[in-house]
Each structure stands twice: as structure tokens, then as C-alpha cells.
């Protein structure tokens, strides 16, 4: 064995413990410390609005840009409602954690009002989108509207905020 290859072999042997210790490391979510524990939005996964555009087979030049603008406008309108919904979820969550079940109906009612407001925003946006559709595109409208459910809210697979668990 030549001298250089012997050196490399020794280097390889010296690295074996590093490899083994890497394999024994605890299995983690693979997400960063600034994560929520909810998965990141996959770079490969299209945004819900884009999925809807695909489903409706909208014309890239004539229809899709208008739909994107429309969704952006609706998203702006929806932002304060989404915030309200998040706050109400937090209230519900805190009541559940404190086992104050008797106080939950009031929070549920408030949530209902906010969720109705959000659904109205989705419905208004969809009414405008539907009006743009050609007859052959309307066949997929029901599926496209199903994709709009919660489109203006933060969902586990759509975004992040806070930190993931694990640390105390």
C-alpha cells in the first residue's frame, strides 16, 4: 500500500466514530428551531390559489392574472378576520387547557361569527371568479371552490409562526 493511500485509510478510520455518532443522534422533525412543529410549505407544492387556477384550467393570459389579483384583494380583506379567528382559536385552546368547558360555548359562538365572515369573503371571491368562467370551465367549479376552504387562513401545511417544540 502506498503512503498516501495509507494516510487516507487512517483518515477514513478516524471518521468512522463521527459517522456512527451521527446515526445515533435522536430522530428530529428536521425543522429549524424557529419552526412551529407544523411542516413547512413544501417548495414543490403549489399554493392553493394556483391549484384552483389549474383545476379550473384558466387561460394563463386572459383569466389567471385577474383571478390572482382577485384572490390578493380578498386576502387583504380577510387578513383581520383571519387574525380574529386565530385569536378565538387561542381562546378556545386556553379554555380547553384550563378545563373550563362551561366557558367554551361563548367562545364557539364568537368563532362562528368570525368563520361566517371569512366564509362570506371566500364566497364573494368565488362569485367573481365564477362569473369569469367559460361554460366548459364551470364543470370544475365545485372542486375549485372546495379548494378555497380556508384559503385565506394560516393552515399547518401552509405556513409557520412561533417555535416548534422540543425545547423547554
Amino acid at each position, binding site marked *: 500500500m502506498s503512503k498516501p493511500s495509507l494516510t487516507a485509510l487512517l483518515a477514513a478510520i478516524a471518521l468512522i466514530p463521527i459517522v456512527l455518532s451521527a446515526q445515533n443522534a435522536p430522530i428530529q422533525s428536521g425543522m429549524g428551531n424557529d419552526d412551529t412543529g407544523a*411542516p413547512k410549505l413544501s417548495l414543490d407544492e403549489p399554493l392553493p390559489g394556483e391549484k384552483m387556477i389549474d383545476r379550473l384550467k384558466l387561460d394563463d393570459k386572459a383569466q389567471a392574472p385577474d383571478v390572482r389579483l382577485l384572490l390578493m384583494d380578498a386576502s387583504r380583506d380577510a387578513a383581520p378576520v383571519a387574525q380574529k379567528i386565530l385569536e378565538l382559536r387561542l381562546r378556545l385552546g386556553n*379554555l380547553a387547557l384550563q378545563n373550563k368547558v362551561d366557558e367554551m360555548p361563548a367562545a364557539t359562538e364568537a368563532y362562528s361569527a368570525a368563520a361566517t365572515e371569512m366564509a362570506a369573503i*371566500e364566497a364573494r371571491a368565488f362569485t367573481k371568479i365564477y362569473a369569469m368562467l367559460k361554460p366548459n370551465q364551470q364543470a370544475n367549479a*365545485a372542486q375549485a371552490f372546495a379548494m378555497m376552504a380556508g384559503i385565506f387562513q394560516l393552515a399547518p401545511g401552509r405556513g409557520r409562526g412561533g417555535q416548534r417544540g422540543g425545547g423547554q
Partner: protein
Amino acid sequence: MRVSLACLAGTMIVITMAATPRAQRRGGGGGGMPQGQFGGFQLTRLEILTADFQLTKDQKKAVKALLDDAHKSAAATRETLISAHAAIGAAIAANKGQAEIDAAVKQYGQLAAAMATLEMKALGQLVQQLDVPQRGNQAAVRSAFLLMRGIFLDAKKWDAVPDSRSY
């Protein structure tokens, strides 16, 4: 020198290959790489809860059982929620009057609230399974709070990789 570099390169390849299976099990993209890159897969809800709270075997079993039950109990709410959302779309497509659309929207809002309440109650039950130090892990509790959104939307199972479905 050329031989040494070749051996070193070979060693690095071996290290990379040896480390790959573990990196893939970490839910994709260990080492700060974005998920989905290199085909890494993501963790399911139960796997995330287990890792975040460091659940014992018994706790994991208890959490699974309670969320299985909650998932079953949520079936009726889930079905009516999805139907109510479809009814809004159908009303718009059928060019129904605003009053009818508003009624459908209101019904959907009530069902969305009912679903959110079920999710939060399940969170409360889940936390009751934990020890005091685990409950004090605020980051894990926050993570669980976020994981609960839409947990019962899939008719088949709740223990899946969270996706973009919402309500």
C-alpha cells in the same frame, strides 16, 4: 497526492451514504435543507407530538387512543362541514339569491366553529395525558395547538402528515 485526494473523496462519499438513511428519517432535509429536497419525507402528527413532548410509550398509546376516538366523534361534524361548504359553491353556481348564499355561509360558519371546538377539546384532553414538565414545554404545546387545525378533516385518519387542507 492525487491518490490521497481520491481516497479522501471516496471517504466523503461513504460518509454521505452512511448518513443518508438517518437524515431521511428526520422528516426531510436534515441540516437545514428545505423539506421535500432530496426526497426527504415529513413526520405525521403523532410522530411530531411524540418528538416534541418526548412521549413515553404509554403516553403515545394514550394520545393515539384519545385522538382515534376524537376522530370518530368528529365524523358527523366533518361530513356536514364539507357538505355545507359545497352548498355555498352550489348556491353561487346556481345563481341563487344573496339571502340563500348568506344562509349557507352562516351554516358553514357554525359548523366551522363546531369543528374548531372539537379540535381544541381534543387538545385539552391530549395535554391531560402529559406530565407537568411536558405541559410546561410551551413550544411543544404551541406546536400541538397548530397541529390540531384540520386534524379531523381527513375521513380516513388523523395521523397523517399535515397538509394544506383547511376549512
